[in-house]
């Protein structure tokens, strides 16, 4: 189902700056993410991590600098266009559709791939057979179910998203994002609120997603998870990069340790 | 000539302001468009008229009576159309207030008939000349009462303990509750005050136009909405100023451009504000999402 394009996916952040009034959320940031990596983005609260995600997905627009995805600069103003290019994300405070079922939620993710234009989706809607499900709906459902199985949510397919326990909601968000067939997946604190056992399962899940050909950028505070699965780590503070390297290097970097002083984090 | 128009503009504006105050207070505290507010205005006018005609009250009695009765009406509205309705569906409270509007308006028509009623004279016919301006006793009275009421309300909101509680509730229900504010009671009091003021506005309107009608509520409701937006949602002083402004604009455009276009400007302003400055001229002060 997911395209495996090993050499293509890579992201370059070049001199990205974002200001809110006088406050620099991101200051001339320079980062490169290699294809097929699990690249972690860490830093104290307020360092600019979610802002970066918002900029990459197009929810916010940068004041200066640029973002290059798979060799092409990302110019589209609208998030939906960026998703079509292959960038997907989850949210720090889960944003699910409260009244849709689990299955329907994932099917929303599929919509943009099956119907890249409004006309196509309208035509499909108008040409449906009454009292039965059109071929396309059936196929969407099947694909969605496969994805749900991957995430262990298949048995909950008809439950309302808002009725799910927290851990399941997080996984549903990931399933939904994955349904858009991304080549780059941004995970915003996927382990927040999880116990160690759940975090280990998450660990495995993220690795399996990467193995399907998706590059992952991971914002996390859970250092065990970060060090366990990341190929590369970038550390942000006050909107700039203060360190970068593989997990081992970061763990022993004095600049990083100092930045986290005062934060309740075990490196 | 222009002074006459300015005075007319102020009077119309004062009426708008008084109605908009209640609207914006309620919106600030509940994030609810209290559609029935226009009908409260109308009821105030009717109460005033009946007090004068059947109870022989003077204008002060009429004003007081209208304020009290409309305040009670506001409380009743809270208990039957606001509190019992679940707030998580955004349109449900709006519809129940629309239902209330329909009930109040048609109850009045049922009991009274749909025709206009003449509002008897309660203020001696006297003209005052202040410099180039000629103003009647009635006009002076209306402006005086309206401005006094606005000043009193402003002092109440800014200086009194309940006023602070109202402002806190308008910011955020949870925080206010944590600070010991009884949110339900504050909402009730807001409704009572807003409705009372609308009631007074209704009587003043009756004096100004020498007539009242059961249909005067809808127009007041719509104009009140525009003023509320113009002044900034939830912003009481903003509503006061915006109301006066809108009144002036309407009268001046009617005088110098034409009467059918008078409403046109109000709605044009509405749309322009929505598109370019939806927070209104003076900024909003509304409750956060709960």
């Amino acid at each position, binding site marked *: 189902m997911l395209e495996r394009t090993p050499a293509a996916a890579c992201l370059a952040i070049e001199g990205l700056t974002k200001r809110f009034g006088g406050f620099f959320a991101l200051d001339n940031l320079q980062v490169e993410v290699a294809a097929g990596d699990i690249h972690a983005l860490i830093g104290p609260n307020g360092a600019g991590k979610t802002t970066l995600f918002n900029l990459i997905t197009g*929810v916010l627009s940068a004041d200066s600098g640029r973002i290059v995805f798979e060799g092409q600069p990302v110019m589209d103003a609208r998030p939906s266009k960026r998703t079509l290019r292959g960038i997907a994300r989850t949210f720090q405070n889960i944003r699910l559709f409260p009244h*849709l079922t689990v299955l329907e939620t994932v099917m929303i993710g599929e919509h943009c791939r099956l119907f890249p234009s*409004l006309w196509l989706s309208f035509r499909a*809607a108008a040409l449906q057979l009454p009292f039965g*499900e059109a071929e396309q*709906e059936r196929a969407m459902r099947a694909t969605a179910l496969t994805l749900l199985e991957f995430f262990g949510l298949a048995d909950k397919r008809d439950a309302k998203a808002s009725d799910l326990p927290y851990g399941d909601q997080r996984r549903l968000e990931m399933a939904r994002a994955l349904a858009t067939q991304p080549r780059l997946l941004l995970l915003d604190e996927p382990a927040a609120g999880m116990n160690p056992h759940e975090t280990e399962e998450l660990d495995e899940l993220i690795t399996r997603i990467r193995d399907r050909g998706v590059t992952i950028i991971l914002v996390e505070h859970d250092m065990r998870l970060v060090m366990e699965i990341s190929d590369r780590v970038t550390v942000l503070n006050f909107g700039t990069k203060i360190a970068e390297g593989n997990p081992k290097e970061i763990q022993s970097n004095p600049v990083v340790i100092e930045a986290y002083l005062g934060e309740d984090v075990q490196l | 000539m222009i002074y006459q128009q300015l005075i007319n503009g102020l009077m119309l504006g004062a009426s708008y302001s008084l109605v908009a105050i209640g609207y914006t207070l309620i919106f600030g505290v509940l994030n609810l468009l209290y559609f029935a507010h226009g009908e409260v205005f109308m009821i105030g006018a009717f109460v005033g008229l009946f007090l004068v005609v059947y109870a022989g009250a003077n204008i002060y009695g009429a004003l007081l009576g209208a304020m009290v009765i409309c305040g009670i009406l506001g409380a009743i509205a809270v208990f039957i159309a606001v509190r019992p*309705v679940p707030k998580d569906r955004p*349109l449900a409270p709006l519809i129940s207030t629309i239902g209330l509007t329909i009930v109040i308006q048609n109850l009045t028509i049922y009991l009274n008939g749909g025709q206009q009623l003449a509002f008897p004279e309660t203020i001696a016919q006297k003209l005052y000349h202040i410099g180039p301006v000629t103003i009647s006793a009635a006009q002076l009275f209306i402006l005086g009462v309206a401005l006094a009421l606005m000043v009193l309300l402003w002092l109440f909101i800014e200086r009194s303990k309940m006023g602070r509680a109202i402002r806190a509730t308008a910011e955020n229900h949870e925080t206010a509750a944590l600070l010991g504010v009884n949110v339900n009671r504050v909402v009730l009091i807001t409704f009572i005050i807003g409705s009372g003021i609308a009631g007074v506005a209704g009587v003043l309107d009756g004096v100004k136009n020498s007539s009242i009608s059961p249909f005067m509520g809808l127009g007041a409701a719509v104009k009140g909405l525009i003023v509320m937006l113009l002044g900034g949602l939830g912003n009481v002083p903003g509503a006061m100023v915006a109301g006066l402004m809108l009144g002036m604009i309407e009268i001046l455009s009617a005088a110098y451009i034409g009467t059918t276009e008078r409403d046109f400007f109000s709605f044009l302003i509405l749309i322009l504000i929505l598109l370019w400055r939806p927070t209104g001229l003076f900024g909003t002060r509304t409750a956060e999402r709960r």
Partner: protein
Amino acid sequence: MFNTLIDGYTQSILIFIGINIIVAYSFFAPFKTGQVSIGQAGFMAVGAYASAVLTQKFGAPFIVSVPVAGLIAGVVGVVIGFPALRIKGIYLLLLTLGFSEIIQVIVLSWDYVGGAQGYRNIPFNRHTLESVIVVVALLIFFFGRLERSSLGRAMDSIHQDETASEVMGIDVVRIKLFAFGIGATVAGIAGALYAHQLTYVDSTTFNVMMSIEILIFVVVGGASTYWGPVVGAVVLSLLPELLRTLREWLELLPVAWTNFYPADKIYDFLHGFLDFENAKRLIVYGIILIVMMIVRPDGLITRDSIPRISLKRWRARHA
């Protein structure tokens, strides 16, 4: 065609109900994406006046002027839809309200369409009932399909969380404009049909209260499913008739029963109260609205109320 089967009075009632169903759908379409419009009467006015001009001044046949008028209203809808994209909640309410009011003012001062006297002598059309029935059937069909389609799901997702939808690749801008335009077109068609039925429209015909009634049809009927608008429009349109029937049943009570006080007082009161003379009927209507919002704010029909007819499921159950 129906002229021989059904008398004129019944026809006009059916047309009235049919048009109410159509306008209910005109509110339903943008609402599905979360856009609440109380300006649909304004779009009706555009359709009404456009079709009147086409039929009366350009001699276009009914079957042409109605859809064209609808399209004109649709274009206006898309134009208004653009600024509507970035505003929400009460602001959108006010924008659509303002639009509707401005249309009224324009119509009032534009002499080409009658100005203050209104537009008279719109040719009455004997086929209005058939047209209404066809339009209603098409709408139910179309919205039923929409509900079961991916596009319909996308619209629901926009309603529930617009930003999340956008980030999932849903083309929120186009879909919202589309929904708003459809709503305006449908309202325009309703307005056109209405004009050719009443043969007279003026600047007070399509007022705020009408837009609000349209909203009420859908919210009371049930805004979460495509049967909601139909149920809401039918029930609320027939309310005076329902009340009159109740009154007639009341009259069937044995006379002896009502000889006892206070039964006769209660009887008199109810009997008078259910008189569907305007003001009293409206009072009951208002009370029903309040009660409904307390007791069943989701509306009369929700998705769970409708038995899902699916061939596959039938086969599965009877296999």
